[in-house]
């Protein structure tokens, strides 16, 4: 599934990928692939701008960490991010339920 099909849901997916703990950009993309069984094969460069915006909006925080001598930016959910994720999840459930009811 491409970025276009996911437009509008990418924020929630990125927030959900970070629900269980902090991750760096590459790991977030891998986590999205893994959890979706490879269905969400995003253009990798498009996830970083979303991460930066979510951080600027206060939903994520980030910091540099050193791993094997390499600097990497690690993102984590903020409290606001966690409540935003819960709200988006609820919105999605309502939306998906309504679509399913119409399509069925």
């Amino acid at each position, binding site marked *: 599934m491409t970025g276009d099909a996911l437009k509008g849901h990418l924020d929630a997916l990125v927030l959900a990928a970070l629900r269980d703990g902090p991750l760096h950009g*590459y790991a977030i993309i891998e986590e999205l692939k893994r959890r979706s069984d490879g269905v969400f094969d995003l*253009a990798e460069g*498009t996830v970083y*701008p979303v991460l930066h*915006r979510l951080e600027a*909006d206060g939903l994520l925080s980030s910091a540099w960490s050193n791993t094997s001598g390499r600097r990497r*930016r690690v993102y984590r959910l903020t409290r606001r991010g966690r409540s935003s994720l819960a709200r988006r999840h609820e919105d999605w459930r309502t939306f998906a339920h309504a679509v399913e009811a119409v399509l069925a």
Partner: protein
Amino acid sequence: MSYLDALRHELARAGVGGRRLDRIVDEFADHLACDPEADLGSPRVVAERFADELGLAQTRRAALLVFGALALTAVLLAAAGADTSYPARVQNGWAVGLTGLGLVAGAQVAFVAGVLALARGRRRSLTCAERRLVQRRAAVALGAGILTCSMLVAHGVVFRQMPAAWTALTIAAGVVPLPLLAYAGARLRSAAQLTPAGGVAPGLSADLPGALGRHSRALLALLGSLAVAAVVAQGSLFERSASEGPARGVIELAGIAVGTAALGRVLGLFS
């Protein structure tokens, strides 16, 4: 040219600079170190996406900052005016009147533009045209806020009959918010640099919920009438004069008419 050099070049071209640019390049370098075959997309597309996403976040933040700076101005303005008894006859009357009028007009324009900027800025997603509308509203609020502060300082200086404590408080109330307003202006400028031109944003109707959106002009007229009524009541009750209230009401009405005609399109009041 390597991918990272091309990305750096495109980011700078798209208006992303400074530490943000270095951070993005470092993150992409780390990604490529994890997977040298990664398909990160064309540097130009990635840079434009960054400008787009950051422009959105910075527009929201700038609108909030402007509103925060204006709120501080309003609190200080109220503090400066509290517990003050004004003399019956004013020396230097024209200057006091002019600065007072500038103060009232600036504060009202700043409030309306600031509220409108926040109303559109809080939406989850904004098109580029809507972002530019939020930036214009915030810029008008900022300009009016600076006018209000300047008039407050001038008012304190020209109103010579007032006690020294009032003068000091009034001048301080005008000066204190200025650094925050200047910072908000810098953030607004940086958001504007990241927002490409093009498209038309829907007007006030898009800021209002549901059915209210269909009656935006009627709502505008109602709010204007309420503001005029409040000014008439305030002038009549506090000045204890039969003519002062209506006279102020006429000035308020004229001000609203001129303000709407001059700023209506800039503020996106009409679709």
